[in-house]
C-alpha cells in the first residue's frame, strides 16, 4: 500500500501545483487577494504531499520492500540502515523526487517567509515556481515513478552502487540539489519581474537571500563532491573536468556572478536587465546539469539513468523554461529601465568586470563540456576534452578575476580615482610581492609559476583582510575605536571578507597541490619499502577481512621522514559481492602543510602489491577554502539588509527611466 499512497501523493502534488500556477497568475492579474492566498496555501500543500511521498519512499527503502522496482534495483537487505536510507536518493527516480521536494521547500519558503513582498508579485513568483513543479512532477509521474511495482517480487535486491556507499555521498546530492534547485527562485523572481514589467529593485531585493542560500548550498555541494572524488575514486585528484562536475560548476559560476550583479542592482540600480538575464541563465544551467546527468548525452563516470525518453522529457522542460524565459526577456526587456550610469573606475565597474569574466569562464567550461557532443554531431568522431584545455582557457581567465576581486571592494561606488586606489592597495601589493620573493627564494627560482600563484593567494588573503583594516580605520583611530568599528560593521561585510578569504585559501590549495604535486608507484611485498617525497614508505602487511556488505583487504603502510616517528596509513580495497565491484579507499594523512595519500592497487602474481603514493602540499586548503566561502555566504545572511525591509525609499529616478522614451 505504501507505494500506492506515495504515488497518490505525487498526483495530488501535481494537481496542487497546477492550482498554484492558476491561482497565482489569475489572482495577481485580478488583484484578487483570496486567489493569491490560495497560491501560498498551494505552495504549502505541494511541500506537504511531496514531502510525504519522499518520506514514504525512505520507508520503503528502510524496510527493504523489494516489490518496489527502485528498491529492488538499488538496495539489499544486508546493507546498513544508513545506506538503505541514502540509497533512496542514490538512484534516478529517488533523486528526482528529492529534486522536486527541494523545489517545493523553496516554493513554500518564498510563500510563507516572503510576507513582506508586494502580494501580486509574490503570487506571480509562486505561479512560476509552481509551473516548474508541474513540469518536474509530470516528469516523475510519467517517466520515472519511484513507486512502480515489480512482479515477481525478488527475494533480494540488486544492491547499491558501492561507490555511493559513503557518508560524504549521503550529503553531497541533497546539498548540490539545494543549490541547483535553489536557483529556481532566481528564475521565478526574474520571470515574475518580466511579467510585471517591473524595472525597480524589488525583485532583486526579495530574491537575494534565496540566491545566497542557493549559492551557499551549491558551494558546499561542489566542495563535498570534490572531496569525495579525492578520497574515494583513488586517482589522487580533486577535479577531473568531467561533464557532470562541470555541470555543477557552471551554475556555481553564474550563480556567483548573479550574487554580485544583484548587489549592484540593489545598491546602485544598475545592470537591471543583465541581472534578470543572469537569473534566467543560472537556473537554466541547473536544468542543463540535470539534463546532462539524466540523458546520457555525454559519457561520464557519474551519468546514471541513461534513458533517451527521460532525456527528451527533460530537454522539453529545459526548452520550455529557458526558451520561454528568454523569449519573455526578448519581448519585455527593452521596455525595462536602463538604470543609472557609473564610471568605469568604480565599485560597479569592478563588478561588471567580475560578471564579464565569470560569464566568459562559464562559456569556456560550457564549450569544453559540449564540444565533444558538437564534434560527434558534425563528424561522428568521439573525442574528449581534458585538463589541458581548461589549463589554457580557465586559468588565464581566472587570474584577472582574482586580481579584480581584491580591487573591487576597495573602490567607491559610482566614481573613484586610480591614484586613491593604488594607495589603498599598497599593503596587499606588498604582501603579494613578499610572498612571491619568499616562495621564489625558497624554491631557488625553479618554481616561478608556483610562486606567482601563491603570491596570488597571498594577494587575496591580504586584500580581503585589508577591507576589515580599512573599515575599522586601523592606525587612524585608537585600537579600542577600531574594535568598536569592526563590531559595528554590517554582517554582509564580514561575509564578503570571509568569502573572498576562502577563495584565497582555495587558490593556495590548488596552486600547492597541483604544482608541487609528487606521485610515485611501487610494487611492494610485506616488509618492503620505497623512498618517496623525502620519506621512506614501508608496506607492513596486507590483511583480508569482512564487513556486513563487503569484503576488504587492508594494507598497513608506514611513512617515516628522516628519523622521525612513523605515520601509519591504512588504505583499503573493498569488494562488494552484491554488485561484483571494487572500490578503493585511499588513506590520507592530512596536515595543514600537505597531504600524504596512499592507495592500494592490485596484487601481482608474485604476491607483491601495487602501492601508489601522492604528496599534495596544501591540498587541505582546497576544501577548507570552499568551506570558508560558504561560511561567508552564511554570515551575510545575518545582515538585516539581505532580508529586504518592506519598503526602502529608493531610486526616485527609476520611474522616468522606466518609461520607454525616445
Amino acid at each position: 500500500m505504501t507505494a500506492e499512497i506515495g504515488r497518490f501523493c505525487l498526483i495530488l502534488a501535481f494537481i496542487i501545483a497546477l492550482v498554484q500556477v492558476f491561482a497565482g497568475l489569475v489572482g495577481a492579474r485580478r488583484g484578487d487577494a483570496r486567489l493569491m492566498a490560495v497560491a501560498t496555501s498551494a505552495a504549502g500543500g505541494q511541500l506537504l504531499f511531496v514531502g510525504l511521498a519522499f518520506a514514504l519512499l525512505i520507508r520503503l527503502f528502510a524496510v527493504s520492500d523489494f516489490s518496489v522496482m527502485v528498491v529492488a534495483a538499488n538496495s539489499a537487505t544486508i546493507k546498513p540502515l544508513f545506506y538503505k536510507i541514502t540509497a533512496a536518493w542514490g538512484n534516478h527516480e529517488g533523486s528526482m523526487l528529492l529534486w522536486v521536494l527541494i523545489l517545493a521547500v523553496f516554493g513554500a519558503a518564498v510563500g510563507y517567509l516572503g510576507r513582506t513582498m508586494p502580494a501580486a508579485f509574490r503570487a506571480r513568483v509562486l505561479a512560476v515556481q509552481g509551473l516548474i513543479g508541474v513540469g518536474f512532477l509530470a516528469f516523475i509521474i510519467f517517466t520515472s515513478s519511484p513507486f512502480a511495482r515489480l512482479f515477481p517480487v525478488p527475494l533480494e535486491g540488486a544492491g547499491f552502487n558501492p561507490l555511493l556507499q559513503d557518508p560524504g555521498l549521503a550529503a553531497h546530492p541533497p546539498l548540490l540539489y539545494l543549490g541547483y534547485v535553489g536557483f529556481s527562485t532566481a528564475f521565478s523572481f526574474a520571470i515574475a519581474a518580466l511579467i510585471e514589467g517591473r524595472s525597480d529593485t524589488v525583485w532583486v531585493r526579495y530574491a537575494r537571500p534565496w540566491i545566497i542560500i542557493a549559492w551557499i548550498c551549491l558551494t558546499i555541494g561542489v566542495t563535498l563532491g570534490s572531496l569525495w572524488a579525492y578520497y574515494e575514486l583513488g586517482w589522487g585528484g580533486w577535479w577531473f573536468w568531467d561533464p557532470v562536475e562541470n555541470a555543477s560548476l557552471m551554475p556555481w559560476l553564474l550563480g556567483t556572478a548573479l550574487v554580485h550583479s544583484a548587489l549592484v542592482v540593489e545598491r546602485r540600480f544598475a545592470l537591471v536587465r543583465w541581472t534578470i538575464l543572469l537569473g534566467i541563465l543560472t537556473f537554466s544551467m541547473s536544468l542543463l546539469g540535470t539534463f546532462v546527468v539524466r540523458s546520457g548525452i555525454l559519457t561520464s563516470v557519474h551519468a546514471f539513468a541513461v534513458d533517451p525518453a527521460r532525456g527528451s522529457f527533460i530537454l522539453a522542460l529545459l526548452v520550455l523554461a529557458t526558451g520561454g524565459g528568454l523569449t519573455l526577456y526578448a519581448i519585455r526587456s527593452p521596455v525595462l529601465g536602463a538604470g543609472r550610469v557609473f564610471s568605469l573606475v568604480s565599485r560597479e565597474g569592478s563588478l561588471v568586470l567580475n560578471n564579464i569574466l565569470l560569464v566568459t569562464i562559464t562559456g569556456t567550461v560550457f564549450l569544453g563540456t559540449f564540444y565533444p557532443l558538437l564534434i560527434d554531431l558534425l563528424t561522428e568522431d568521439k573525442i574528449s576534452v581534458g585538463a589541458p584545455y581548461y589549463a589554457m582557457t580557465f586559468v588565464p581567465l581566472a587570474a584577472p578575476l582574482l586580481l579584480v576581486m581584491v580591487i573591487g571592494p576597495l573602490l567607491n561606488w559610482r566614481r573613484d580615482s586610480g591614484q586613491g586606489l593604488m594607495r589603498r592597495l599598497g599593503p596587499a601589493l606588498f604582501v603579494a610581492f613578499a610572498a612571491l620573493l619568499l616562495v621564489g627564494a625558497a624554491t631557488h627560482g625553479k618554481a616561478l609559476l608556483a610562486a606567482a600563484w601563491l603570491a596570488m593567494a597571498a594577494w587575496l588573503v591580504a586584500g580581503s583582510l585589508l577591507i576589515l583594516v580599512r573599515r575599522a580605520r586601523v592606525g587612524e583611530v585608537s585600537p579600542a575605536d577600531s574594535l568598536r568599528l569592526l563590531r559595528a560593521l554590517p554582517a554582509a561585510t564580514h561575509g564578503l571578507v570571509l568569502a573572498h578569504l576562502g577563495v584565497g585559501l582555495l587558490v593556495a590549495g590548488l596552486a600547492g597541490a597541483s604544482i608541487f604535486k609528487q606521485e610515485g608507484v611501487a610494487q611492494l611485498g610485506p616488509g618492503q619499502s620505497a623512498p618517496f617525497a623525502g620519506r621512506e614508505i614501508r608496506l607492513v602487511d596486507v590483511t583480508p577481512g569482512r564487513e556486513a556488505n563487503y569484503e576488504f583487504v587492508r594494507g598497513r603502510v608506514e611513512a617515516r621522514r628522516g628519523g622521525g616517528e612513523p605515520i601509519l596509513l591504512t588504505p583499503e580495497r573493498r569488494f562488494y559481492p552484491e554488485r561484483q565491484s571494487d572500490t578503493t579507499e585511499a588513506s590520507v594523512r592530512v596536515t595543514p602543510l600537505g597531504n600524504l595519500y596512499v592507495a592500494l592497487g592490485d596484487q601481482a602474481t608474485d604476491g607483491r602489491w601495487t602501492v601508489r603514493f601522492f604528496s599534495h602540499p596544501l591540498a587541505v586548503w582546497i576544501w577548507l577554502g570552499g568551506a570558508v566561502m560558504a561560511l561567508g555566504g552564511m554570515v551575510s545572511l545575518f545582515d538585516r539588509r539581505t532580508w529586504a525591509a518592506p519598503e526602502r525609499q529608493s531610486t526616485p529616478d527609476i520611474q522616468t527611466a522606466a518609461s520607454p522614451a525616445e
Partner: protein
Amino acid sequence: MKLPRPALIAAAVAPVAVFVVLAIALALGLRNDPAALPSVLIGKPAPAFALGPVREGDVGFSRADIEGRVVLINVFGSWCSACRLEHPMLMELAASGVPIHGIDWKDAPADGAAWLKKYGDPYVRVGNDEIGRLGLDLGVSGAPETFVIDKTGRIRHKQVGPITPEIWRDEIAPLMARLEVGG
C-alpha cells in the same frame, strides 16, 4: 548605459536566438544511443573461446556452438540477484524457441548448476567462466548482460541489465528477426 533602440532589441533577442541553436544541438545529440557508446565490440566477431561445463556431464560451451545461427548469449551468475529477476523472461523465451546460450560468470560451476536446477535451465549450451576471462574479452561490466550474435558470429547488440518484456519486444526481437532474414 543608454543603448540605441536597434542595439537594445538585438541585445534582447540574442540570448533566445543562441538558445534555440543550442536546443537543436541537444535534441540531435539525444539521438546518439548512449547505451551503444561504450561497446566497441559491436560489429566485431565474437572472440574465440571454449568454456568448461556447468551442468554435470555436459560438454560446456565454445565458439563453434554459435556459428550459423542468430543467437543470444546471456551472462549470468548464481550470485547475481538481477539475473534472478531476468530468469523467468529467459525461460519464456527459451520455451518459445529462441536459442539462448549461457555464460556462468565469476561463479563456481557447482553453484551455477545448482542455480539452474533450482530455477530452471533456459540455455542450449552453457559454459563456466569462473575467472571472468571471457567476460573481460567481451567487455562485460556486470551481470546480467546479453549479446545478440548474428549468423557470421559477429556481435550485433549488447543488452546491459535484465531483458525486460519491453526491451525484448522493442529492441531484441526485431533485431533478431532482421538478422535472421538479412543473413
